């Protein structure tokens, strides 16, 4: 029940103090052995070119498949937190043996998940529906569950396209949410597929621009999509910004608009060392050319 792991710390631990807990295996009826728990420990031994490992072997009649699953689950939960892909794997396997209500109210809290049917459905889709690259991003925390939740409602090609963009550019969680929201809206409004939008210029150019680093690309992409999604809002922001920067505002003075221009007042902030300096700044502002025209953008000439 492991995905997206780094074997090195385990190898170092085995090299230093040896194997602490042996893996548990079960004899298969048709012959051979199946790992119940300890997959990474066996992999680590292989990696270290060790040809022997001490294991505990159970007879096939000793354990039911659900009991095997329980051993694996609790063995893992006692030593670490499962990542979202692994949680999805656990829930998928439980789904074959356990009633839905039991999964919702006993196992989901155990995995740190809310007992919501919607959440269960989402996690059950992870293992069969996502490719390994997306799973890797999810397991490594580079793709948020919130974004994935929205993306899973899209067609698989679009889901993969957006997930790849997110992981390649390394958008942070807030940026992911905005990216997903805007690109879905634009696709709906312009009646174009998401993969088609992503290969259009200037977006395509931004994504592959060798002169920008990832944070710069993320900012440029989001700004471009926001301009497409909210053209009036963005235009208003630009007009306001241009007007404020055209004023010869002294150092330590700021004029700001409320978020989205929704509240009714603009704000002036003055920082000063003493009363004399404050008076100077007020006197300067009183004489400032162009201030009379300052207003909300749609009211400015």
């Amino acid at each position: 029940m492991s995905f997206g792991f780094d074997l090195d710390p385990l190898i170092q631990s085995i090299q230093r103090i040896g194997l602490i807990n042996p893996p548990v295996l079960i004899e298969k009826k048709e012959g051979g052995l199946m790992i119940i728990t300890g997959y990474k420990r066996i992999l680590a031994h292989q990696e270290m070119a060790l040809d022997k490992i001490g294991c505990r072997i159970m007879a096939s009649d000793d354990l039911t498949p659900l009991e095997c699953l329980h051993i694996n689950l609790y063995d893992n939960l006692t030593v670490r937190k499962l990542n979202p892909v692994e949680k999805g794997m656990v829930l998928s396997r439980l789904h074959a043996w356990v009633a839905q209500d039991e999964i919702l109210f006993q196992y989901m809290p155990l995995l740190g998940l809310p007992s919501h049917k919607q959440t269960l459905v989402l996690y059950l889709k992870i293992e069969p529906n996502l490719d390994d690259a997306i799973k890797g991003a999810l397991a490594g925390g580079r793709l948020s569950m919130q974004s994935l939740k929205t993306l899973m409602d899209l067609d698989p090609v679009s889901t993969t396209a957006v997930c790849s963009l997110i992981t390649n550019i390394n958008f942070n969680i807030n940026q992911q949410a905005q990216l997903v929201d805007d690109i879905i809206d634009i696709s709906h409004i312009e009646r174009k597929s998401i993969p088609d939008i992503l290969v259009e210029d200037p977006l395509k150019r931004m994504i592959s621009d060798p002169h920008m680093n990832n944070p710069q690309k993320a900012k440029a992409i989001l700004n471009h999509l926001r301009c497409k999604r909210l053209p009036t809002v963005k235009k208003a922001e630009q007009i306001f910004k241009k007007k404020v920067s055209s004023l010869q505002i002294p150092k330590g003075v700021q004029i700001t608009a409320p978020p989205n221009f929704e509240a009714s007042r603009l704000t002036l902030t003055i920082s000063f060392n003493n009363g004399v300096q404050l008076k100077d700044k007020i006197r300067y502002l009183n004489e400032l050319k162009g201030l009379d025209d300052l207003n909300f953008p749609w009211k400015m000439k």
Partner: protein
Amino acid sequence: MMAFGGNIKQVIVEHDASSNAYVQEVCQRLPQNGLIITEHPEEKTERGGDFDPGKEILHLLEYKGEFLKPCPGTKAYICCGYQILNIGTNCPLDCSYCILQSYFNQPHLRVFVNIRKELEHVLNYIDANPDRVFRIGTGEFTDSLALDPIMRWTDFLLPSFSQRKNVILELKTKTGAVNGLVSAPYRDRIVVSWSLNSPYIAAKEEKGAISIRKRLQKAQQLQSEGFVLGFHFDPLILHSGWKAEYLRTIELLDRYIDPKGIIWISLGSLRFMPQLKQIIQKRHPKTEILNGEFIRGLDGKMRYFRPIRTELYHFIRENLEKWYSSLGLYLCMESDVVWHESMGWSPETSSGLRSYLDRRVKLVFG
């Protein structure tokens, strides 16, 4: 007669409501063919998947809270001080923009059958405050009339409110289920209101509702029967050709309605809690209502960017006032600055808007 009753396939009766005589009356009014009546011990039912509102299930239960509650409104914007008489929640109509879609953790058409008993407390409260004007409506959490052929709310609400001088009861609908109103002898203190939109939005986004023309024909019928009318352009929605489309609605108003018999017309633009967006996208994948430029408002709800809202309101107001100058126009949940920019005046505060609407009540009903 049974427009929405005909869609009911199952009735769930909560245990504590099963002995209520009202329940027996309601069940007898429903078409019996294939109807399943279930006595459900507790309200935990979550039916048929994540987004199934269970609109074919009538869920009869007793409501444990206060039946009369102030409209939730918001502190960030100017609100009208409306009171909600909570007769039920969820609605047989299926408008794409409906806020009730986010209440699906409690699905079904839930109707509170202890209303007849509990109404006495509501009326006592109104009588105990003779100097206050109560503007009360039943159409916030459900359509006021869609289920009236089954529930016969009008049988007991009209006589209760009609005889009181410090109250009006507003029944707000998008249906033509007016038989209960017409057959009752009560007119005083009753306002019958229709939600209006552009014919395009009504046809595309208000599933189950009758057309704008039919709404106004029903309103005309009620006006001729002596009822006072109200209208609500809410939610105003930007769409291709919106000006021409809304003008069509105003033209229909002019054709069917005498403006002197209107107590008020409210204007409100589309707004929604952010979490409703995904529900709308899932339940109504072809909807265009989310295409506009929405920003997060001061109350956390998504709403059109301020100059867009102002333009919408200004256009509707200008054209309504060309029709008749005293329509009791007001904005629903807007700021003082938007009032000024679009209406040319402002009540300044929620208290100011309350007084304005209370004066309309006195003007129309005396």
